[in-house]
């Protein structure tokens, strides 16, 4: 196996995107994604069984397209990587079975990797144009900085990680204890009649609303949860969005009960401010108290204009350098899986074999199975 510039094919199927990406070392060759998002619109959220059915039908065409775009064949590939968790159990199963079959049919080594850590891996990618120029949004020098953290915000997860080594030392500093941030956006968008996915709809409308018109609660910010830096409370760096969703519902009901028009734009703006405020303040706090000086923002909600703005602002006041990869690399995709796979190959880590089971609640401390 080529361990210096390995050609790695990555497969992602943990939620509603079927992704196949191909990298050579840290160079991105192709990133093909087939999404079943349109099929979930009428339900107002991702339906696991529908996503799983779509993965089954999308996998081979997505693989074919990724190989064609990268202008490589399966013979050229040094290793295969697949998301084995965390994610939706039935959805993970499709990608894992397909990846194992690929490994059996080609005899190539297979790495079962952690989806959350893969979100960090994209920060190391650069375009494949021969030059060393990183993406705007690659980590400086395409290397893992000393004091790296990652803030991941999506429809499936909300986490702050500390990365000492991307191949074997990742720590979860905080996460949501109930809904993911993107899920809260979807639920509130439905309450406000704004459709699915909720993130872009609320982001757009919020620009025309007054975020200060209403104040929604910031979950887990009371002293009993926060504690102090020396004696941290039980949820110092954790988030909770289910109370916020209930508060929005109550607010809408109150306007309706009074027979008043619901100020949808103001509610959208105030909700967005509550989400973004609590995410960024806790993330920056976690960075400061853990000596993190470089932060990578990932996950689909990285597309949110207000989240980017406030994260940039608060990071810069705290002296933290922020990296935001290109959006198509922030959302779930196969290139991130390939990117982490390549790091594992280059670090000399052994492949996982073909006997592992997907793990829908795989902890970040397990970078590869």
């Amino acid at each position: 196996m080529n361990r210096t510039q390995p050609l790695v094919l990555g497969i992602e199927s943990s939620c509603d995107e079927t992704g196949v990406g191909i990298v050579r070392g840290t160079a991105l060759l192709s990133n093909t994604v087939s999404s079943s998002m349109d099929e979930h619109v009428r339900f107002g959220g991702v339906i696991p069984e529908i996503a799983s059915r779509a993965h089954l039908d999308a996998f081979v065409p997505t693989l074919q397209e990724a190989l064609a775009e990268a202008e490589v064949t399966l013979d050229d590939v040094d290793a295969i990587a697949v998301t084995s968790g965390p994610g939706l159990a039935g959805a993970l199963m499709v990608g894992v079975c397909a990846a194992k079959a690929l490994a059996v049919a080609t005899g190539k080594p297979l790495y079962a990797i952690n989806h959350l850590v893969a979100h960090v891996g994209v920060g190391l990618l650069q375009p494949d144009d021969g030059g060393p120029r990183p993406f705007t949004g690659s980590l400086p020098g395409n290397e893992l900085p000393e004091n790296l953290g990652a803030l991941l915000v999506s429809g499936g997860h909300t986490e702050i990680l500390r990365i000492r080594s991307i191949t074997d030392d990742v720590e979860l500093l905080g996460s949501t204890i109930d809904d993911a941030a993107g899920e809260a956006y979807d639920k509130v968008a439905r309450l406000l009649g704004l459709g699915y996915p909720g993130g872009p709809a609320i982001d757009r409308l919020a620009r025309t609303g007054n975020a200060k018109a209403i104040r929604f609660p910031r979950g887990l910010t009371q002293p009993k949860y926060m504690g102090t830096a020396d004696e941290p409370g039980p949820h110092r760096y954790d988030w909770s969005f289910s109370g916020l969703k209930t508060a929005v519902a109550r607010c809408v009901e109150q306007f309706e009960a009074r027979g008043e028009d619901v100020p949808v734009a103001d509610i959208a703006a105030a909700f967005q401010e509550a989400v973004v405020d609590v995410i960024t303040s806790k993330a920056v706090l976690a960075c400061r108290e853990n000596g993190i000086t470089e932060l990578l923002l990932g996950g689909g909600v990285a597309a949110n204009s207000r989240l980017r703005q406030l994260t940039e602002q608060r990071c810069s006041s705290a002296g933290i350098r922020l990296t935001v990869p290109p959006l198509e690399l922030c959302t779930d995709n196969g290139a991130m899986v390939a990117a982490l796979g390549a790091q594992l190959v280059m670090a000399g880590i052994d492949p996982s074999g073909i006997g592992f089971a997907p793990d829908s609640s795989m902890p970040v401390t397990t970078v590869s199975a």
Partner: protein
Amino acid sequence: MLILAIDTSAVASAALVSDDAPEGVLASFSTEDTRSHAEVLAPGIDALLADAGVTGADIDAIVTGVGPGPFTGLRSGIATARTLSYVWGKPLYGLMSLDAMALEVAESTSAVPEFLVATDARRKEVYWARYSLADGQLPRLVDGPHVGFAANLPDLPAYGAGAGIYEDVLRADPDFSSEQPDALFLGQFALARLAAGEQLLDSTPLYLRESDAQVPGPRKRAL
């Protein structure tokens, strides 16, 4: 003709069947349980090929059971079969999974001219189909596959684990009361039908049930 057959509609199973081999079977494996397909299927196929000294290049076609069966397990086999077919560049066929057990029944001493095959569909239901069998012929699918309550099935001898579970309301054959569809019989059935010039299915899964998703109703307004 050498066929790699895969079925994960209930247990995980795979077989190499060939019209050149004695008894038609080179090698086969199947698991006992119905919930570990993702772990055991690929290693099972890998070992099957290695033990038989067969590579992808030697295989003429891949056949997969297309259900009905519990969704996640069923997809494991189809995803595996589709990927192998793509990488090896070999044709892929589908066969209704209950057909495998119909052939097993036909080859047994308890065969009768009209019968049902039933497997566990969970949620107190069974997947079932009705077959007829003429002397010296392959079993013929007459009705199904369907999913439903055992109590509503036609009054005929019933074979398979689905019949075993509901032996109080079905005429379950005791010799078959824990039998599951197996790739061994699926592959043999496919071989026989291809030899007879019959068409097989493609690999589209027969889910029979919609996903459980409910379109949310309009939110109730506070009055």
